[in-house]
């Protein structure tokens, strides 16, 4: 039943997303602007990391796309909650995990699709990376999306007005991006900032994707990245499922 209900709800949400071309493309706009107008500034600059500037910037933009996109996923749930759809689904026999996973898989598919657009644009601008590394990057985007969207849905059920939800998410997402070295490697940072950034899970993810983009997969950085991404996703989905189950208590 878990698989059946998850697939059913995934198709429902995917159908809704496919009907909204704006939603499908708009999320990729900000990273594309960074790629077009910020990326060329970094060409030939020493960035303290292996690979050229595109191999450093594009992994950061991929995770930035996921960070900002998935963190705001809860907006849709606030709307659905106001329509009564959330309660209607919660009274069906569908498992609480399926109610969440159906959404998360749609979100992961959407942001991987936008990541593909971003990478295609980056390839046109000069990115060169192994195919396996690019695929690893997409896998990290999918995992991070599941984790952040799950937490976003949990927050949306606890803070049920868009006026409160938006600023809260923004206040968390912006420092997370800056402290994770998504735009530039933290190797360039002063010691205190480098130490602080180690408390951000996204740092481990972006470092792992940067390794993948230079074709290095069997590294400690990659191991940490995988462990943090999987652990964060499992923890976040557990939190999201629990909040879905107990919503309104």
């Amino acid at each position, binding site marked *: *039943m878990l698989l*059946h*209900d998850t697939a*059913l*709800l995934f198709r*429902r949400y995917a*159908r*809704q997303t496919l*009907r909204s071309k704006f939603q499908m493309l708009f999320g990729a706009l900000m990273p594309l602007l960074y790629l077009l107008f910020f990326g060329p500034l970094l060409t030939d600059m020493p960035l303290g990391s292996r690979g050229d500037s595109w191999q450093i910037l594009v992994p950061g933009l991929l995770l930035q796309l996921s960070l900002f996109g998935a963190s705001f996923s809860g907006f849709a749930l606030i709307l*659905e909650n*106001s*329509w*009564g*759809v959330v*309660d*209607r*689904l*919660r*009274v*069906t*026999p*569908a*498992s609480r995990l399926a109610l969440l996973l159906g959404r998360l898989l749609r979100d992961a598919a959407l942001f991987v699709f936008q990541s593909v657009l971003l990478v295609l644009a980056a390839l046109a601008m000069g990115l060169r990376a192994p195919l396996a590394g690019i695929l690893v990057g997409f896998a990290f985007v999918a995992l991070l999306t599941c984790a952040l969207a799950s937490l976003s849905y949990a927050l949306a059920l606890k803070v049920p007005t868009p006026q409160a939800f938006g600023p809260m998410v923004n206040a968390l997402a912006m420092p997370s991006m800056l402290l994770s070295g998504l735009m530039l490697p933290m190797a360039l940072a002063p010691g205190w900032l480098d130490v602080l950034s180690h408390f951000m899970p996204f740092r481990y993810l972006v470092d792992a994707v940067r390794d993948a983009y230079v074709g290095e997969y069997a590294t400690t950085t990659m191991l940490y990245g995988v462990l943090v991404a999987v652990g964060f996703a499992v923890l976040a989905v557990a939190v999201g499922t629990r909040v879905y189950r*107990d*919503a*309104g*208590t």
Partner: protein
Amino acid sequence: MAIISTAGLAKTFSSKAGPVEAVRGIDLTVAPGEILGFLGPNGAGKTTTLRMLTTLLPPTGGAATVAGVDLRQNPAAVRKKIGYVAQSGGVDPQETVRDELVVQGRLYGLTKAEATARAAKLAADLGLTELLDRKTAALSGGQRRRLDIALGLTHRPEVLFLDEPTTGLDPGSRADLWKLVRRLRDTHGTTVFLTTHYLDEADALADRIVVVDKGVVAAEGTPAALKERYAGSPDASLQDAFLALTGRAPAPVDTTPVAV
């Protein structure tokens, strides 16, 4: 044997100001095929009780069985046997009537073919056939309410919970909905647990009424018995009985006559 039975069912919310006892201990029984009107002034604990019985809120005390299943031990099994129509509805304006009905059926374990056939049957029964491929955002209030009820009936539930089902409807739509509720009970034996602020509605529809106040059952009986007991005559209005019992009106009352 009762299809709904509660004993001391309670819900206490925690808040910064301390615990809030929304429902202090509800004892009630509902017989199979009965239409029960569940009334009370604002803040009496109606909605909280309804949300507990529909598994949306876990109780913090007492016991309850719904359709023969222990609510606290096995809420998942309760969900298979009940239908719920919330006051706010539950349809997604981005979806069509057909998609909503089919998805709902499939969440209750119907195959795609079964869910499609069931959607067509419910649409025919509730006058929605012409609207099957219309976006729910384009439905009128009455049409959307009928769709809400169709969603609640997809799996032929033993108990249908209706939370303020006619709020906001015009008199014609209210009358249609009353007929539908009676038909459900008469032809399918469905038990209906109905909350409403409209005392004329409770009077016309309910076999029996339970009045809650301050989180406990304040009175129960047939509409005629309550009127006689609290307003002095079976010919008095339920509004008089309700006022005598609780000292408060249930809510602003819609006095528009409903043709039945």
